[in-house]
């Protein structure tokens, strides 16, 4: 009889090695969602609520609507002032109202804003005197407001340089025991500048409470986003620095404010910076001096008209019964009044004093500046005598 060979069985029970737990994904919580966060459809109808991005209280949304309407009217007035020669130039942010207003509504008064030249609307929405905001563009001085009083840095033109200032300011504030948050406004094109990367990196390394808020309006003057980056979206730039990031529909005011509220709370809680990319569109040329027909089709601009952030919020608030015809009319009247007041004040020719050129170069003028001041004073006196 042949016995089939049989494998000998182990006498002891087999132990199972516990499965190695999957290594935690180090990028978890840093990467943005694949699609922009959105809480309203383009027609203003609500999408399902989200626990991670709670909808802001309805009073905040109503106030947001009011400031967006006033902001758009301000923006149109500023563009008109360029045609009348009252402003040297004006970069409009029409179409970006949700971002402009959302960025300042998410802050406390004692937080700091680091704006660019594009943010005139945001600054008026923050409550800064519009004439002081437009000083730079009117040309009577560079910065018209006192940054230390309104907790807002001068509007920054050298692209992205403000990103590092915000990291330093926010770190310095927390170093001195204050829970100030800094909000950086920056455009899509400026994310290619080194200072954007250095700023985000410094903020991350020093856990500085900064929100980097990228308004991706798809163009840097004429250059489209595809020339700035090969990343899936600009919000993917945070992960490389260990900074949590999110992308949001920048023309959905409810989502913009919800995402920024969370970003600000994250920063204020001492968890370091947060990067938000808002997908939006500038409806006007780069500035009044720009010719946009050279780089984009009218069709493209027209398509974005259907995604207007103000109409979107208005229809949502109407549907929720917190805004009616009377309130809309009342807010429109406020906007008109605001614009009329601005127009009137901007029609007054500002007085400039050539001798003030020598003030504020240094705390105390150097002997050479004193000498030059004296020379200009003599020139002015001679001119006046000549006129008389």
């Amino acid at each position: 009889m042949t016995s089939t060979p049989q494998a000998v069985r182990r006498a002891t029970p087999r132990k199972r090695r516990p499965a190695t737990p999957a290594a935690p994904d180090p990028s978890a919580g840093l990467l943005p969602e694949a699609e922009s966060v959105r809480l309203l459809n383009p027609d203003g109808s609500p999408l399902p609520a989200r626990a991670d991005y709670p909808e802001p209280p309805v009073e905040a949304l109503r106030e947001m609507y009011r400031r967006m309407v006033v902001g758009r009217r301000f923006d149109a007035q500023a563009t008109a002032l360029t045609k009348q020669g009252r402003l040297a130039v004006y970069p409009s942010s029409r179409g970006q109202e949700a971002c402009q207003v959302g960025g300042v509504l998410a802050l406390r008064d004692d937080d700091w804003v680091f704006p660019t030249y594009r943010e005139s609307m945001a600054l008026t929405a923050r409550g800064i005197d519009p004439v002081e905001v437009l000083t730079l563009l009117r040309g009577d001085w560079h910065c018209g407001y006192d940054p230390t009083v309104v907790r807002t840095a001068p509007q920054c033109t050298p692209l992205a340089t403000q990103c590092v200032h915000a990291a330093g300011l926010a770190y310095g504030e927390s170093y001195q025991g204050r829970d100030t948050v800094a909000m950086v406004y920056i455009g899509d094109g400026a994310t290619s500048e080194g200072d954007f990367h250095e700023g985000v990196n410094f903020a991350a390394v020093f856990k500085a409470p900064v929100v980097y808020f990228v308004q991706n309006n798809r163009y840097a003057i004429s250059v489209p986003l595809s020339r700035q980056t090969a990343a899936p979206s600009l919000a993917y730039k945070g992960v490389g620095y260990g900074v949590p990031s999110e992308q949001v529909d920048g023309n959905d005011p409810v989502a913009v404010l919800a995402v920024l509220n969370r970003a600000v709370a994250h920063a204020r809680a001492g968890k370091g910076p947060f990067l938000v990319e808002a997908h939006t569109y500038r409806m006007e040329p780069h500035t009044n001096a720009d010719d946009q027909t050279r780089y984009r089709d009218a069709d493209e601009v027209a398509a974005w008209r259907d995604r207007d952030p103000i109409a979107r919020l208005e229809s949502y608030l109407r549907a929720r019964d917190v805004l009616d015809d009377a309130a809309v009319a009342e807010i429109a009247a406020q906007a008109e009044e605001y614009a009329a007041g601005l127009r009137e004040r901007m029609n007054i020719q500002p007085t400039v004093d050539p001798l003030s050129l020598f003030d504020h170069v240094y705390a105390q003028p150097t002997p050479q500046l004193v000498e030059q001041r004296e020379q200009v004073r003599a020139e002015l006196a001679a001119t006046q005598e000549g006129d008389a």
Partner: protein
Amino acid sequence: MATMTMAKALNAALADAMLDDERVVVFGEDVGQLGGVFRITDGLQARFGDKRCFDTPLAEAGIVGFAVGLAMSGLRPVVEMQFDAFAYPAFEQIASHVAKLRNRTRGALSVPMVIRVPYAGGIGGVEHHCDSSEAYYAHTPGLKVVTPATVADAYSLLREAIDDPDPVVFMEPKKLYFGSGEAELPARTEPFGRAVVRRSGRDATLIAYGPAVPVALEAAEAACEEGWDLEVVDIRTIVPFDDVTITESVRRTGRCVVVQEAQGFAGVGAEIAARVQERCFHALHAPVLRVSGLDIPYPAPMLEHTHLPSVDRVLDAVARLQWDDQPDPRWLTEGSAA
């Protein structure tokens, strides 16, 4: 009086400033545990903690921009650029923000800070480690630009820079770091805006700053043998500039040579020569001459001595100061020579 190196005096100035003013924070590349590549921040982190003295990411624009924000929050940043040429990435921050914020905001927002720059050559350094970059800063209104040539000045000027309400680019001549001098700390020398006569003389004035001061002094000693009694003025603070001291000196001596290590074209020495000429024209017996580095990128170590202004080059210039009332032949055109 104690004998110490300039490096030690700078280190003591930082430590004393940190002790006296808790707003002072010191940061940059390798300044923490290592104490800086030249050891100027040696021991500060151990003594004051890593919140007061810390390393940053390797990014010079970031370092200076971060300092802007810290100054806005009320702190007093003192930052180190590791070498002259490595401050160039920070130039946009320096020229567009550090220098201008006070002016842009009509005095509402100022950003007092000190940007320390180890600069110039003479140490056998390879390229990018020996640039004389002072003219870039001096040409930027809103910045003060200071450069010590003595140990006592190193301490005193750095303390004054940290206390100054304006941003100061503090240029430290690398080749003088480890030379010793006499100082009693806490030294207080002449304030910003004052040039100092380092050696009195009757026959001609040598005007120098930073690394060129020892060269000028040595030249003045050597000139005695040739019968010239030379005065040496140390500028110390390029901005603010002291016209009074140099004018007084050159009007007295009637002859002037400006000595700088930097390449000459469009440099600080050119500015000084122009100012002397404007103010001393009627007292001058000869044109104001300049001795400077050559107008070349800083050379490789084995060639740097051809580039650097030497005692002999200074003496050659002095010899050309029309002592016998004869114009320097090299400036005569054929027509006028005829």
